[in-house]
Structures are given as C-alpha cells and as structure tokens.
C-alpha cells in the first residue's frame, strides 16, 4: 500500500469518528483545549499503529482504546489521586427515602434534566465507573467493546455499570432534593400525587 493509499484509508476510517472521540474526551475534562489535544494525540498514535490494526476490530472501539490510554497517560503525569470508589446498594436508605427514587418520578426527573447537567454528573463519577457508563450508555458500545477498550472482563463491565448507574441515580436524586429544598417545592411529590390520582 502506497503512502497516499494508506493516508486515504486512514482518513476514510477515522474521519467519521473524530467528533465522537472529541465528545468522549470532553466528558472527561472541563477544558476544550485539552480535549482537542487528546483527540489529536489519539489520531497521531492511531496513525503510528495503523499498520497493526486488526481487521476484525471495529475502528471506533480501537480509537476509543487509544484515547483511553492517552487520557490515562496524561492523568498519570498529573499524578492525580486515585478516588476511592463508593458502593451504593439498591436498598441504600438515603436513596429509598427520597420520593424521586420511585420509577415514575425518577423518569420524570430525568426528562427535566438538561444534557449538560447529566454530563456534569457523569464527569463527577469515580473514574472506573465514569468510563464504563460513558462508553456503554452515551456511546452505545456493547459490553464486549467496552471490555476491549478498558482491558477488563465483561463481568467487570457489568458490575461497574450497575454500580456506576446506581451512584449516578443517587447523585441526581440528591441534587434534585437540594434544588427542591432551595426552591421550597417538591416536584417529585407533585408527580407522585398526580400519578396517584391518575392525572399524570
């Protein structure tokens, strides 16, 4: 394959995914410039390793795996402290005691949340959960693809996803609770009452 052919092939394969990579990068930093740098470094590394790309691997999963390494390397340089991952059980009392934790009200609350608010809550998840939730729920990858990108077993993807979603749900419910206390209203309670009376 000539250099031009190789470039053509590389560009053809990677170009559709650039913005998606950027979206993933941006959800892991508050700086746009850093996200852009991560994408650039990802594409440069991808080009360098392009000849080693296995035909059987989906290009997007391959690029995400490189991006994941790029971000991990950068963070290692920053010597960030590892966050201890909390575990929240389904019967966590704080969670259960809030009216927004019931299925219907929770769904209504989610509908009212802006995408930016949700993204911010995901950014605040402990790293090991954040990556899994992001790759699965936002990027729509399969468990096998997430396992390949993060170098973990599919069972680990499943448990981290279960826990990550639970922490995220808990965070959203608690922030909703704070908001309601500030505003002096309880939209979840109202939703419950509506549901109970068959109005909503």
């Amino acid at each position, binding site marked *: 394959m000539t*250099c*031009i052919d*190789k*470039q*053509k092939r*590389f*560009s*053809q*394969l990677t*170009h*559709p*995914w*650039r*913005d*998606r990579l*950027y*979206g993933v990068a*941006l959800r892991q930093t508050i700086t746009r*410039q850093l996200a*852009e*740098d991560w994408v*650039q*470094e990802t*594409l*440069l590394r991808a080009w*360098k390793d392009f000849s080693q790309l296995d035909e059987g691997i*989906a*290009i*997007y999963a391959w690029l995400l795996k490189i991006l994941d390494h790029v971000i991990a390397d950068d963070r290692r340089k920053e010597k960030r402290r590892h966050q201890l991952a909390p575990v929240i*059980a*389904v019967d966590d009392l704080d969670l*259960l005691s809030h009216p927004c*934790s*019931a*299925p219907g009200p*929770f*769904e209504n609350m*989610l509908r009212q*949340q802006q*995408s930016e608010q*949700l*993204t911010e809550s995901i950014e605040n998840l402990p790293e090991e959960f954040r990556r899994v*939730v992001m790759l*699965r*729920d*936002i990027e*729509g*990858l*399969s*468990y096998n693809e997430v396992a390949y990108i993060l170098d973990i077993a*599919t069972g680990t993807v*499943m*448990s981290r*996803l*279960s*826990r990550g*979603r*639970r922490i*995220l*749900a808990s965070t959203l419910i608690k922030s909703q609770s704070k908001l309601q206390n500030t505003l002096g209203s309880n939209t979840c309670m109202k939703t419950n009452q509506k549901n109970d009376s068959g109005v909503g």
Partner: protein
Amino acid sequence: MDIPFDINTQNRIELHETLQDLLAGYVDYELDNEQIMFVEAHLIGCEACRNDLSRQKALSQRLESIPTSRMSAAVHQNLDKALEAVAYEKVPLVKLPVWLLSLIAFVESRMPHFSLASIIGASGWGVALLLSVIIIEPHFNLSNARQIPMIQDAVAEYYEMEGRALPVSGMKNKAAIKPPLNWPNTQLLSSWATKIAGAPAQVFALRSGHNIIFQYQINEAVFFRNPVVRKAISKNGSYALRDNKTDILAIPFTDSGILVVGATDSLPKPEQIVF
C-alpha cells in the same frame, strides 16, 4: 429447624447483594439464561431491585439521547495538518499543541507564501481527505434491514409515499433547499419533515433518471445507534443493503447521517456522489 432458616436468610442476603451487580446486564440483555432465571426469581420478591432496574433503564435511555459535542472546523483543519506532517515524516512524531497549530494557521492566513504544507512538501493528506469523502465502498448486504429501526422507518415511508402525492408544503422556497448529497442528472422534487426512529428528520425526494430516490437527513445519534451500521461505516465509510426491491445506503454527513433509499440498482455510484 431454625438453622436452615438462618442459612436461607443468609443466602438470600448474599444473593441480593450479588445480583445487584447483574442488574445492568439484565437491562442490557447481556445475561445468559441461567443468570436471567436467578435475577427474575429474585425480582419477584425484591422491590428495591425492581426499582433499581427501572432507574437503570430510564437512565440508560436518557443518556443515549445526549448529543455529541463537535470540534470547530478550524480544529479539524489543524488535525489534518498534524496528521499530514506525521504522514510525510518531515517532522518528528511529536504532538503539536492545538494552540500552536492555530497560530500557524493564523500566520498562514496573514502570509500567503508561508504554509505548513509547503514546508513538508506535500498536499497529499488534504487530497486524500477529499478523496476519502468522495470514495465510498458500498457492500450490499442481503437484508436484515427491517431489524434496524431507522431503516425500517425510512423504507416504510418510502413505500407509503409510492402511492401518494409528494408533499409540496415544504417547498415554498425551493431554490434555497439543497439536498445533502448530489449526483448528476438529479432534480429535487419535494422535501418535508418526518420522524425517523422517533427523532426529527428531513426527507428530500429526488428524481434521478426514471427513478425517485429519497434522501433522509437524520439525527446523528440515531444514525450511529446500531452497532452493525457503526461497524460497516468504520470499515467501509458507508453501510449499504438491499431489502426486497429496495437499495439503502447509509452515509455519515457533517453533523448528521444520510439514508438514501431507492429501487434496486437506482442509487448513484459512490464516485458520482458530491457532498
């Protein structure tokens, strides 16, 4: 006997704790039959897990709808330049910060004789990029089309419109309406808003020779939702299939996805398409 009761209680607690890690897999259809059996048996008697399951489903669906962020055109150009430089190996494989590339772009704009491309002695990457957008390699798959909601909706509307007059309400300013994909000997007949896989979309009906071809410009999140489509686009730049007497071609566009639907062998050849 009291002991078995304690053991059972202990087992139930352990099972309750263990199964919590499987709930995501249950929501996402990733469990095997045995695991499904355990989870479903547990769910019957555990309201906390049932509620958790509902929250996970709702959360997963809501997160799926978060739109993708985009880089500016300038950043895309800078990426092209960085890759161009590396491809020709005229500069060492180092990461140039984006701000530095922006500076170079600024200097280039002020000094026409200075250009990074001229320094590295080639414009091949830009040409390659252009070619890559033009060249598409369709690989026609023999159906399963109807399993992909966006294709199901597009094909259903295409068939439905066969027996109806094309809408004219959206064509008041016809000259200003441009279909996203163009090829020779086509004429725009009509355009209207529709919904594909639950998301707003725009249809462009074109006459191409003796055929009527529909282009659907659809939400990017919907377009990339199906893993089969994603994989095909990763490998070939497009996804193409044949469903009964219909050809369908899925091509990623700037900030959306395009589905082209027409009668068998009526779609343009990839090299004819102009973006």
